[in-house]
């Protein structure tokens, strides 16, 4: 036995490779993050004018429509101690990560995926993290990030759209409804608005950087206020109201 211990042991490349693979698998299974990730999923029946309200702290939020008459909320929790309890109150499904975890300390990221009928309203606010909302045609789409994160709203046809962040870009791709209100504001981010060429609206666009590109939506009726930092004017005969403000970024209007 002692002779065997002292003598060199020969390993094949396959043996070494297998051992490394086993080791890697064991390590990844034992890592705290792998254990920490927890998923919560809940479904609610959806009425006609359903509304989803989400108050998150940190993490990505993805909202998309589907053809089912129900709402599915899936949350991926970074911290095992975090608590997410969606509540149904009448026609409104409410998720308050802040309230559900008060006094629990740092709960880490909570990433959401919400699937709901396209006629729903969506009201989302978070302290940080990206928000993506796609193919929603309800009354309201609100995406508010207190600090940083990109906001991407695509396929939106709501009568009221509000998007605001501090650091991060905002992208809107959708329609402006007649009589609707649309506000996009970023402190340090670029704002892009992609709309059909026949869109009709009253626009107030403000950017101290003077980087305002209205492209084919520009017309001579626009008033240039503040030496190119603010433009006010009507596009077409629509009565929807659009306000776009960025303090340190650019504003770009694109034709769909």
């Amino acid at each position: 036995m002692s002779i065997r211990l002292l003598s060199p042991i020969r390993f094949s490349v396959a043996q070494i490779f297998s051992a490394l693979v086993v080791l890697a698998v064991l390590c990844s299974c034992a890592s705290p993050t792998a254990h920490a990730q927890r998923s919560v999923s809940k479904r609610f029946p959806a009425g006609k004018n359903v509304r989803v309200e989400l108050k998150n702290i940190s993490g990505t939020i993805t909202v998309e429509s589907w053809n089912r008459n129900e709402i599915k909320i899936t949350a991926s929790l970074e911290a095992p101690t975090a608590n997410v309890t969606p509540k149904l109150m009448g026609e409104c499904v409410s998720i308050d990560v802040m309230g559900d975890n008060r006094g629990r300390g740092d709960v880490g990221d909570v990433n959401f995926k919400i699937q709901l009928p396209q006629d729903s309203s969506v009201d989302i606010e978070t302290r940080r993290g990206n928000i993506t909302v796609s193919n929603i045609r309800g009354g309201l789409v609100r995406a508010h990030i207190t600090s940083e994160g990109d906001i991407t709203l695509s396929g939106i046809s709501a009568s009221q759209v509000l998007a605001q962040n501090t650091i991060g870009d905002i992208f809107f791709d959708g329609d402006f409804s007649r009589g609707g209100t649309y506000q996009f504001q970023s402190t340090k981010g670029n704002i892009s608005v992609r709309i059909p060429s026949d869109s009709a609206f009253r626009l107030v666009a403000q950017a101290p950087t003077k980087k305002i590109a209205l492209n084919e939506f520009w017309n001579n009726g626009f008033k240039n206020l503040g030496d190119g930092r603010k433009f006010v004017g009507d596009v077409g005969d629509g009565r929807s109201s659009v306000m776009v403000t960025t303090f340190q970024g650019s504003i770009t209007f694109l034709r769909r």
Partner: protein
Amino acid sequence: MNCEKCQELVGELVDGALSPEDESTLTLHLEECLACSEVRNDLQSIVSFCQSHRGEYSAPPNETALWLRIRNVIETEVQLPATALPAQGFWSRWMSRSWELSIPQLAASAAAMVLIVSLGTTVLLRRWDNGAGKAPVATLPNSDAATRVRDRMREQQQAMDYWNHRVEANKVRWNQQMRDTFDRNVKALDETVNERLNELNRNPHDEFSEAMLNAALNDKLAMLRDFSDL
């Protein structure tokens, strides 16, 4: 014996300290005079009460302190005529006061004054520097618009100080990522505020910059409020 003489001696009568001769004269007067007789009766009843309740009164908790207080009161009353001299102002009294200082005392006083002035200057300069760090860097010229902006900023600063205080108290509970995010975003908002202030410094009547400054200050306040909840 008249009433005056009688009332002088009535105390000694009650104490039983009169000579037999004086006692009989006084007794005769008391039998004839109702007023003096009432005085004798009153005095007699007081003495009798004191004698019958002797030892029942409670002694002062600290006899020495009581006497000291009485003495202080008496001395104060004695000194009152001196303080009741024609009223002199603090400044005139201070100015008319004479100082006798030796050379070492004089040197020590001068050194103390130099030390106090230099310390005071250092503290003031530091405060000034801190204030400049918190408040926007740009200064505004004197005009109605600038005054309006300054007033607005002063109001906002008070609210921001309040929320900032709450944020700082809660910050220890955040993870490092959240702390970094917060600092980055406050910096972005401060940059915006300073840019607008610089613009207003160049053109105090720039309404666009004033409106944008107000919006940026509101955004900063909202962010502080939101993060103070974490």
